[in-house]
Every structure is written in C-alpha cells, then in structure tokens.
C-alpha cells in the first residue's frame, strides 16, 4: 500500500515530465488560436458603421467590410487563422472608413442644407423687396 504522500510525489514527477512534452507538441502541431479579438473588433466596427447609416452614405465600404468579415470567418472554418486575422483587420479598417465617410457625407449634407436655406431666404427677401418697389 502506497501512502498518499508518495502518490502525490510520483504524480508530480510525472507531471513535471509531461508538461514540457505537451507544450512541445502544442508548438509543433497545434494551429494558431482563432483571432477572436480581431473578429470581434471587426464585427463591432461594422455594427458601428451600420448604426451611423453607412449603408446609405458609404455602401461600398460597408459592403467590403462585410465581405471581408465573411471571408475571415470562412478562413477560421478552414483553420487559416493568420489569414482570418488579416481579413478581420481589413474588415475593421473598411468598416471604420465607411463610418468616417458617412460622417463626412452627413456633415457636408448638413452644411449644404444650411447654405441652401440661407440662399433661399436671401433670394426670397430680395424678391419680396423687389415686389414692393
């Protein structure tokens, strides 16, 4: 009958030997992990772009972001994790561009609106003053 202490010792010894072996195996054979952070960031960037109505103002960029993310997910399923990370980052960059372009387009639209209103006002005023004359 082995004492519990002796069992523990032998188990520890065994562990000490197997852990480096497992790590070695991991490095040698395991694929890189799923680039979850990159994928999440890309998804978040796309959601953000959708929220600011990028579908209306920067449809091309948003579409590209979506297809890049889809490609990234495809790469994940094919265990191409490096490609998946790159595609996810590209999806994010595209989505961020979509959001930025949307912001610029909206700002320009608002300014154009103000300009048009002002011009209308001025024109109206001149016409009315012209009428009274």
């Amino acid at each position, binding site marked *: 009958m082995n004492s519990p202490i002796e069992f523990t010792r032998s188990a520890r010894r065994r562990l000490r030997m197997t852990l480096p072996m497992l790590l070695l195996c991991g490095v040698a054979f395991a694929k890189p992990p799923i680039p979850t952070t990159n994928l999440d960031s890309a998804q978040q960037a796309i959601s953000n772009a959708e929220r600011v109505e990028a579908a209306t103002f920067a449809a091309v960029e948003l579409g590209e972001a979506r297809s890049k993310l889809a490609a990234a997910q495809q790469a994940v399923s094919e265990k191409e994790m490096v*490609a998946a990370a*790159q595609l996810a*980052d*590209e999806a994010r*960059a*595209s989505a*961020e*561009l979509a959001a*930025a*372009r949307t*912001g*610029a387009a909206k*700002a*320009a639209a*608002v*300014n154009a609106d*103000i*300009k048009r*209103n*002002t011009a209308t*006002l*001025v024109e*109206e*005023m001149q016409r*009315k*003053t012209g009428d*009274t004359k």
Partner: protein
Amino acid sequence: MNRTNYITMKSALAVAVAASLFIGCASTPKHPLGSEQVRAKLTALQGDPALANGAPVALKDAEAAVRDAERTEKDLVLAAHRVYIADHKVDTARSLAETRVAEQERTALNEQSEKARLNSRTAEADRAKSDALIARAESAEQKLAANSARTDANDAMLAANSAQQQAAELQRQLEILQAKPTDRGLVLTLGDTLFSTGKAELKAGAAANLDRLTNFMNEYPKRTAAIEGYTDSMGSEEMNQALSERRAAAVKNYLVGQGVVSSRLTSRGRGENSPIADNESAAGRQQNRRVEVVIDQAPTN
C-alpha cells in the same frame, strides 16, 4: 602630367563607385507594391492646410500604418494586407478631417443663416409697416381726415393772412382817416369844415371826408363808433350843447343813410367841454369846433 591625370581619373572612379554603391544601398529595400501610392496619399493629406490638423489621432494612426506598409516584406500577402490597412486608414483620417472642417464651417454658416433670417424678418417687418401705412393712407377716412386737416391748416393760414391783411388795411384806413389811437379807442377828428357856422347841416364838401368813414364802417361791420360833437366857447352854453348834439346826430344820420346800422352808432353833444385848443384865438376856436368819431378797439370781423 600623365600621373596627375591618372590619379584624378582614379579618384573620380572611386567616387563614382562609392556613389553608385550608396545609391544602390539606399534603393535596395524595395517598398512593397502599392505602398508608394499610399505614402503619396498620406503626404497629400498632410500637405493640405485645411485638413492636416483636422483629425490628429487618426492621422498618427495612418502614419504608423503607412510606415508599416513600407517595411520590406517577403510575405506578399502580408505586405498587401499592410498596404490595404494603411490605405484605408489614410482615407479614414481624411474623412474624419473633412468632417471636422465641415463642423467648423457650420458655425459660420449658421451665423450667416441667422443673419439672413434676421434681415428677412426686419425686411418683413418694414414691409408690413409700409403696407400698413399704404393701407391707412388709402382708406377714405384717413384721406378725408388728411384733407380736412389740410383744409383746416389752409384756412388757418388764410385766416392768418387775411387777419394780417385786414389789420394792415385797417391801419392804412386809420391813417387815411387820420385816426389817433387813444385810451378811449381810435379817435377820428372831423374838422369844422363839415358845417357852416351855427348850422348843423353837413356841407356838400363834407361828403368826401365822411365817405371814408362810411367805407370804413361798412368794411368792418363789427366795429362801433361813438360820434361826439364839440363846439368852441363862443355863444351860450345851452346853445353850444344843442348845436353839438345836432351836429353829432347829423353825422350819425349821414352814416345811417350810407347803410351803417344805427345800433353801431351813438351820438352825443359835448358842447364846449374838452377843448383841444385855446378858445381865445380864432385858430384855437376853429380846432375846438369839431366832431370826434371814437371807434372802439374791438377786434375786426
């Protein structure tokens, strides 16, 4: 001579080789495909004075990405990936800067808009005011009121003018009549030439003298006249009193005969009273024999 040339040539060659080596070294790290275009885009953005400071964080991010894209990379997929990222980041930075510039412009645009709105409102108010004025002016009532006011003003002016003219005319006539302003009124003295001695009948030549008085009285129908007869001290007092009364009455009758309402005229005899000259001399007595017409100071008309 030859030797010097040789050395020169040799050193020139060395310089050339060194230069070519240097250039070779400099150009050796080949930039990945597309990275130069991205760099150019970045440079353009940085060189745009309006946009360069619009989105500093995004621009720094883009700069780092461009540097990353320019790194020599044997993995062409990775190199293309870096260029893609850099390209998008530069575009993003530009868009963010454009947004910022637009937002800054908006302040000025809003001010312009506000100014235009204010002008428009002011113009509208002015227009409303002028419309109201026109409407008011066009209303018959106002027109009538304006006309009547104008007429009133004209009348007042005419009245003023006529009063002035009449006053001037009165003055002129008083001068003709040789009336003197006294505390009793305007006193017109008619000399004894009107009557023959001891008689109360007007002489024919008196008419011209009295006609001026008649005209005056007819022209100023609101004025009244007190006709007073005076004599010198020759003869009895009773006789003189009676004579003065009859002479005054004769003048009054003449005026009534000329159309002057009798109620405007009073006559009385003062006899020998109130001599205006010495009764001792013939000239003095002549002056005392007189008829005075006192015209009241009441205003004309």
